[in-house]
């Protein structure tokens, strides 16, 4: 018995164990390494999130495709059939943009109230809190990948092959999408703790944001000349989602100029930049997005100190 205890004591030498510090401020580097250390928790939260979402529903994960499919169908009906925008294969153009928008929308929407909704957990268990909004973004990534898969099958079924060389820029655009969504989600989740109205405000703001992004219309064919005349093009491109959507559309829809099915005149739908220009813009954007992500983490760090008393 004594020996067993001695052995247990010997095996329980903590001299080399890492030291964790709880203090008023956590530096950005430590914040990132904490996050990395808890990636298994992130994965578990994402899978449980998805499972809970569809638990007990008859169609299960199919819902994650059905509702975007309905949105796609409605937009197609409104813009292509009723309003006759004359864009051939409009459904592919629409789908490529919607895939991007859906990820941003669902990531930000679900993350906005996550800290408030899971107050019980936040007040009782210690873990890097930013994992909660990041898990919502993670679920959004899973749905995004499913929808992307459907998009690829869809284009294959229509025998509409993507622009293969643009597949090189796609990961870059996706990274932009991820970091931007995560940054917005992290900041919004923390701010909502202090201002509960943000939950509703976000829903409204995202609706406006959707129409500021060329998903259901073509930027080149509608706003571009007017914005260019007033020198506001840069302002429009301040919205990072625009560049990401354009990259996805360019990859999957391919044609930059098409013949209108209504007026039979040529229509310029997408910017005529080459691959290099797309890559360059996405790279510059990535720099900003990573910066934004880090900024979001440090803002979150500032705000999380008072969570306990505000929740």
């Amino acid at each position: 018995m004594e020996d067993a205890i001695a052995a247990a004591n010997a095996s329980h030498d903590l001299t080399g164990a890492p030291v964790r510090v709880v203090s008023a401020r956590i530096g950005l580097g430590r914040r990132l390494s904490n996050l990395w250390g808890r990636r298994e928790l992130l994965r578990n939260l994402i899978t449980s999130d998805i499972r809970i979402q569809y638990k007990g529903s008859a169609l299960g994960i199919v819902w994650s495709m059905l509702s975007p499919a309905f949105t796609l169908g409605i937009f197609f009906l409104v813009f292509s059939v009723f309003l006759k925008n004359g864009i051939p294969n409009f459904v592919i153009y629409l789908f490529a943009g919607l895939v991007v928008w859906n990820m941003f929308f669902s990531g930000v929407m679900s993350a906005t109230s996550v800290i408030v909704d899971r107050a019980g957990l936040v007040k009782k268990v210690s873990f890097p809190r930013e994992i909660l909004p990041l898990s919502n973004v993670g679920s959004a990534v899973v749905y995004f990948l499913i929808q992307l898969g459907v998009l690829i099958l869809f284009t294959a079924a229509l025998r509409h092959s993507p622009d293969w060389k643009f597949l090189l820029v796609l990961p870059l655009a996706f990274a932009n999408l991820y970091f931007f969504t995560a940054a917005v989600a992290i900041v919004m989740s923390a701010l909502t703790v202090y201002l509960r109205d943000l939950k509703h405000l976000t829903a409204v703001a995202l609706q406006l944001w959707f129409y500021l992004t060329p998903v259901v219309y073509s930027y080149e064919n509608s706003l571009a000349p007017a914005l260019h005349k007033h020198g506001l093009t840069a302002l429009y491109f301040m919205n990072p989602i625009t560049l990401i959507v354009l990259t996805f559309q360019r990859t999957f829809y391919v044609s930059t100029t098409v013949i209108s099915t209504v007026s039979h005149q040529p229509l310029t739908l997408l910017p005529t930049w080459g691959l290099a220009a797309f890559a360059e813009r996405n790279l510059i954007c990535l720099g900003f997005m990573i910066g934004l992500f880090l900024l979001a983490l440090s803002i979150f760090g500032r705000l999380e100190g008072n969570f306990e008393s505000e929740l």
Partner: protein
Amino acid sequence: MTTVIGVEGVNKTFKIHHERNQSLKERLLHPRTGRTEIFQALQDISFTVDAGETVGILGHNGSGKSTLLKCICGVLQPTSGEIRLRGNLAALLELGAGFQVELSGRDNIYLYGTMLGFSKKRIDEIFDEIVAFSEIGHFIDTQVKFYSSGMYVRLAFAVAVNVNPDILVVDEVLAVGDERFQAKCIDRIRRFQQEGRAILLVTHSGDQVRALCDRAVVLDSGRMIANGDVADSLKIFREALMRDNVAHEDVGNTGEVSIDAVTTASGAFDVKTGAAMRFDAHITSATAYSGNLVMEIFSQGGVLVSRTDRMGSPVNLRPGANVVSIEIPNLPLLDGVFDINLGVVDERGSNVIAWSEKIASMQVSYGGREGGLVELGTLIRQL
């Protein structure tokens, strides 16, 4: 010895909003209304816990012990100061806070385990042990929302203790489950102690501290008023409690009662098992006071052997010196040293008016062959 928890100059203040303006409209229209009060929950707390130590944190409600615990667990950030932790920490605070009721017990074990900071591999290894300990059995694949509250807590407790943390923080959760499960929990805590892990036990029960801890820290209104030996800390804790009773209760003549000494006729505190034990308590009171006298006897291991009925021994104290005689007709205790605590409580038995911790120790000698704490005189006959 390695220090596993180092608390250094920790302060924690809370802002208390007297009017909560959490909607945007309210904030925009009345940016300055609503008083904000600063409340200091912890004030300059410093202490350390070494590997293998069991430390109790004592304090009455509102003393800041839960805040301190939350800071140590990392749920709250201290306003200033820092806490250094070496090794993994599992907290038995509000068991099951991380559970998702829609998921099965199995999924929750993984979710809660990773939330406590353990890897999936580690949880795989001890999964069966967790299920066995929780006694959930085949319900493990049932959604947690169908669990009884007992099953819920047992599962959470099983995860927290079976992941084998280096530091275990226990917050008054030993009251969960039925008696058998409680005994199992205490057992597990003792095994942790033997394995040289550090345990932080937060409670307001002096008995628990005496039974389990090596050392105790006492908090009072956010300040640390004691850090040391269990008996000394308990003494300070009881005194603090008494001071508060005086402050809250306005019983006029309290605080002026003191238990000065205990004497025996022979002057010695030696007694034989089965013999009568008689001693006198000398109590000074400033005014006339009617209350009850309470006596506790503890073994050296910290086990409460006996406590008299809190309402059963009325004493009418006169102003000045009083002598109260205490007699145990035939002492059933076996050999050993036993500590005596004496106290005066009010007539309802709820408020302690005066308390004297470890006022005397008696030495019991025993000639027979029974073992344990008490002599029962058991007769065993074959029929």
